[in-house]
């Protein structure tokens, strides 16, 4: 009943601040936000507009480049029929999905154990994982190249699926560790006394409660894999096994010749899945699922 009443009135601290005028808010909040929005969205806008222009319009410098007069889907048709873009998209999706799943599985176990279990060396393992994350891929790609060569995985999607977790796992582990630490310890203790094993307590109590965090970690991992460039550039030479970022930059640019239409169309298509994912799951980051767990 108390919570119902509270919902009607609004949570403390979410109401309008007394003496806060609309003009003041506009200057302090809305104008800076608008400026930020324009700066952020302009490249996307230009990218989108360019991808719908015909070849003649694209190189007509007498008109403003910011509008499109006769929209056409030529470049998209071209992209799907004349290039290996469908392969690249498929490869990117497979690599991003599988490496995200592998990383999540490992990170959930690692993050949970580092947050909850007391064992010898837990702290140093935690720091070790963190330091691993700080080593830049530009240093790591050399040794990794040897490993991939030894495993005969060049031009094989597994090369990427196995190397992406090297930076995804540290990242996700640290993120999930924080989420697991935020779950009150007593919840799992209650489950243990209630008859659950440690694994059952984790699967039935900790993981459902850390779900917003797990989704967030999944999303970041997916985005990082989707956009990854360096490893893909080095391990994938065959046109058919390339990912979108590498395929687009290598095959839609020849020397100083830029295929602007296809480039922009491919870039736009490449950014759509990530944008869609974000828009779906954004609410999960905000939802505080532990509300009501303890005290009142």
């Amino acid at each position, binding site marked *: 009943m108390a919570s119902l009443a509270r919902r009607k009135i609004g949570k403390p601290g979410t109401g309008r601040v007394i003496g806060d005028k609309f003009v003041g808010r506009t200057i302090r909040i809305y104008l800076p936000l608008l400026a930020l929005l324009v700066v952020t969205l302009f490249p996307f806008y230009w990218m989108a507009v360019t991808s719908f222009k015909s070849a003649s319009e694209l190189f007509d410098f007498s008109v403003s480049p910011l509008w499109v007069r006769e929209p056409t889907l030529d470049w998209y048709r071209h992209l799907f029929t004349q290039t290996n873009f469908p392969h690249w998209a498929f490869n990117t999706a497979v690599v991003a999905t599988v490496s995200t799943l592998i990383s999540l599985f490992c990170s959930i176990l690692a993050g949970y154990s580092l947050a909850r279990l007391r064992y010898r060396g837990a702290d140093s393992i935690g720091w070790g994982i963190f330091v691993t994350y700080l080593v830049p891929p530009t240093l790591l790609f050399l040794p990794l190249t040897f490993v991939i060569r030894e495993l005969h995985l060049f031009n094989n999607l597994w090369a990427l699926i196995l190397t992406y977790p090297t930076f995804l796992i540290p990242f996700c582990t640290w993120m999930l560790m924080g989420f697991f630490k935020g779950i009150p310890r007593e919840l799992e203790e209650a489950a*243990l*006394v209630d*008859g659950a*094993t440690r694994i059952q307590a984790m699967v039935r109590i900790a993981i459902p409660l850390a779900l917003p965090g797990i989704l967030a970690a999944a999303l970041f991992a997916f985005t990082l894999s989707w956009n990854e460039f360096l490893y893909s550039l080095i391990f994938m030479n065959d046109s058919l096994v390339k990912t979108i970022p590498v395929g687009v930059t290598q095959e839609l640019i020849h020397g100083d010749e830029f295929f602007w239409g296809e480039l922009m169309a491919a870039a736009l298509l490449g950014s759509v899945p990530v944008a869609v994912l974000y828009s779906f799951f954004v609410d999960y980051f905000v939802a505080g699922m532990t509300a*009501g767990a303890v005290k009142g």
Partner: protein
Amino acid sequence: MASVTYEHVTKKFSADTTAVNDLSLSIRDTEFMVLVGPSGCGKSTALRMLAGLEDITAGQIKIDDQVVNEMPPRDRDVAMVFQSYALYPHMSVFDNMAFGLKMRGASRTEIGSRVKEAGRILRLDHLLARKPRQLSGGQRQRVALGRAIVRQPRAFLLDEPLSNLDAMLRVQTRIELQKMHQRLGTTFIYVTHDQVEAMTMGDRIAVMKDGLLQQVAPPREIYDQPVNMYVAGFIGSPRMNFLPVTISDHQAKASGFELNLPKAPGLARGILGIRPEHFLPNVSAADAAIDLKVEVLEVLGADQYLYGKVGSDDLTARVDPQLKVAVGDRVRLGVNMERLHLFDAETEKAAF
């Protein structure tokens, strides 16, 4: 139903932090045992070791005749109610209560009937589909109790279950807990820092301080015959008055008065202990008497408390609320010699 025995149990969190120090305590089957003490005295740690949530540094804990030191919590068949309730926020009230039974592989029909029964006893029937966040504090507390009783465990462990309730609900729940104990006929081990809860609920009370057990006894005995100054001061509200005295034979001399002790304690320096409620309004010739200079008055309706000084010592006295007193008055009060306590000034142990 089970007895619980602590045998020389010690818990160290690190080399120099000892939470529980050589605790030996046996709790009888169906007994309501209260562990009481200030925060950090080790009472919760003692309970958590029994639940299996903390490992034991030294000693043994037995449930019935079985040593449980290495037994995982789920096999101990005890139920625990946490101070924060620790309800699973993503499960309904029904699922919260059913969790323990599910984990133990009870059949669906048995789970249904037991949870409904517990829901009926705790007046939660209409709330079974709700999530914890949709419940009031008192309702959450009852769900936490329900989660414990559906399991029909060998012992109930309660870790300050009332501290998050408001004063009225606390008194009500205290009474309900006692009824529940009578109905279930199961061993209850109850941890609290509140001496009123301890006095009202416990069959026996174990007073702890700094990881050391001070005294185990039924409430009346704890109140009447505290073994040391700590227990004497902890149990009873307002606190017992402690007045340093020098003793020669039967004579005890405080800063503001003298009295004849009922027997010679054989000490040179002692601490006299007199509870505020053990002053007599009328002074007869045989009684010892004190002169209290009143500094603060509290009239609570049923009681009146006088705070002031006797000689150079602070003193609190409970007197008849009808007695007309003003701040600055000197009030003459008799000392009930039968209720007098004397402690050794060095060891703080009770002489009588």
